[in-house]
């Protein structure tokens, strides 16, 4: 007999008190219980990256995370990255550079890119960007557009940072 457990989560800035079955992954919680279906279920086994979200600022595969284990966490999904009608610089750059075709992997690609830029390990080296995003598979193979989008978004965010710091 399954019992549910109480947890609290902050998702895209909104606080939630929830009752969850311990078997529920963070991915299923987001999609089924909170109706945030922007985060996609691809392989459901940590191989494709479509389910990538940021948890406490770090990108992870939400399909390999038990929701109960992330009690108290701050989660950022694709629904939470834009400011109202103003797209996040990574979103805008993916559109500008055709960083997708069918779009199914795109929320994961964008969340992974936001994580990659925050980690600060890739710089402007396309090889390091490709390696840093190797956990996100695009079956339409929009990879060259994705790398261009990452490079531009990174420059855009650096300019914004400089303005903010000034």
């Amino acid at each position, binding site marked *: 007999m399954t019992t549910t457990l109480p947890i609290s989560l902050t998702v895209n800035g909104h606080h939630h008190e929830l009752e969850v079955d311990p078997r529920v992954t963070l991915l299923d919680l987001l999609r089924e219980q909170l109706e945030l279906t922007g985060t996609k279920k691809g392989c459901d086994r940590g191989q494709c990256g479509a389910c990538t979200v940021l948890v406490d600022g770090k990108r992870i595969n939400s399909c*390999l995370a038990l929701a*109960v284990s992330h009690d108290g966490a701050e989660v950022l999904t694709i629904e939470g990255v834009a400011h109202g009608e103003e797209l996040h610089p990574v979103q805008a750059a993916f559109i500008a550079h055709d960083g997708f075709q069918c779009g199914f992997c795109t929320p994961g690609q964008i969340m992974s890119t936001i994580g990659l830029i925050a980690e600060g390990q890739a710089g402007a080296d396309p090889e390091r960007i490709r390696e840093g995003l190797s956990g996100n598979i695009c079956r339409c193979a929009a990879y060259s557009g994705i790398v261009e989008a990452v490079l531009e978004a990174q420059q855009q965010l650096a300019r914004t940072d400089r303005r903010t710091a000034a």
Partner: protein
Amino acid sequence: MRDFDYVRPATISEALVAAAEPGSAYLAGGTNLLDLMKGGVTSPERIVDITRLPELNRIETLDDGGLRIGALVRNADLAHDPAFAKAYPAVAEALLSGASAQLRNAATAGGNLLQRTRCSYFYDTASACNRREPGSGCSALGGENRLHAILGWSDACIATHPSDFCVPLVALDAVVEIEGKQGRRHVTLEEFHRLPGDTPQRETVLEPGELIVAIRLPAEAASFAAHARYLKMRERTSYAFAVVSAAAALTVRDGKIRAARLALGGVAAKPWRARAAEAVLLGADADEAAFVRAADAALADASPPGDNAFKIELARRIVVRTLMSALAGTPALMPALPASPFSSLPGVRHDA
């Protein structure tokens, strides 16, 4: 996924009590365990979530100059810790050559040691597998086995251990710190994983309910920092397990090898310390001829259980290549493609 009880202890002693119940499994990063549970490969009755044990989250320098890595330190945090990467560059390179950035953000140091084999017959619950179900047989023998073990295998199991992290660790004499009901004990990583023999289901020396709390590196491990590399041959350049990998660490003075460490990955059910090769290298001239002799010594006992004889020659070449790379010196900057044999010059694109 089968139903399970979930408990989240706040202390190590509470965790040990909770996990003493039969059918318990510890949950940390969950990147391997949840995958196995979804596939029905393992079905714990009780999950003991150890992610809130704060004392397991630290990287500490010990009084004797050694290093203590808490079991819950995430792979990415360890690899990107500047002091760690500087002192143990081959370990950082191995970590960054494994899995994906998302998985490295979740997976833990302790969990890496306990990850299960990636043998497809182990994952396929319709296949015979002595490791998953003792006595059921081994579908890999006589099956698709070109990626399987060439050292230390038995007729009961020819699976390999998939870890990259463990390969330089075993070369550098890492020690596993284990907490159990009887208290704390230390086991060398070399002794930690077991070869399959007749009991492939017993993968490590851990007793039921025991918990890895830390991994230690002795002070000497940092003395190889200038000449330490990890190389990993994969079927694709990124986000793949090793077909064969090697970690090499050298101390060279006046053209002679004064100290040498060598271990292989992807070749056996455990990270494979190549002590016979180290003996060949010690005192030898630091050149390719010595590395070839060392590679021959490392693979002297290798044999193919099936269609994987190519891995023996591949392993010899990877050993020579890794030793050459170590001799050339640790790159100042982590290569863009960590551990890739196709990225010999740091900063130069492999497809340029």
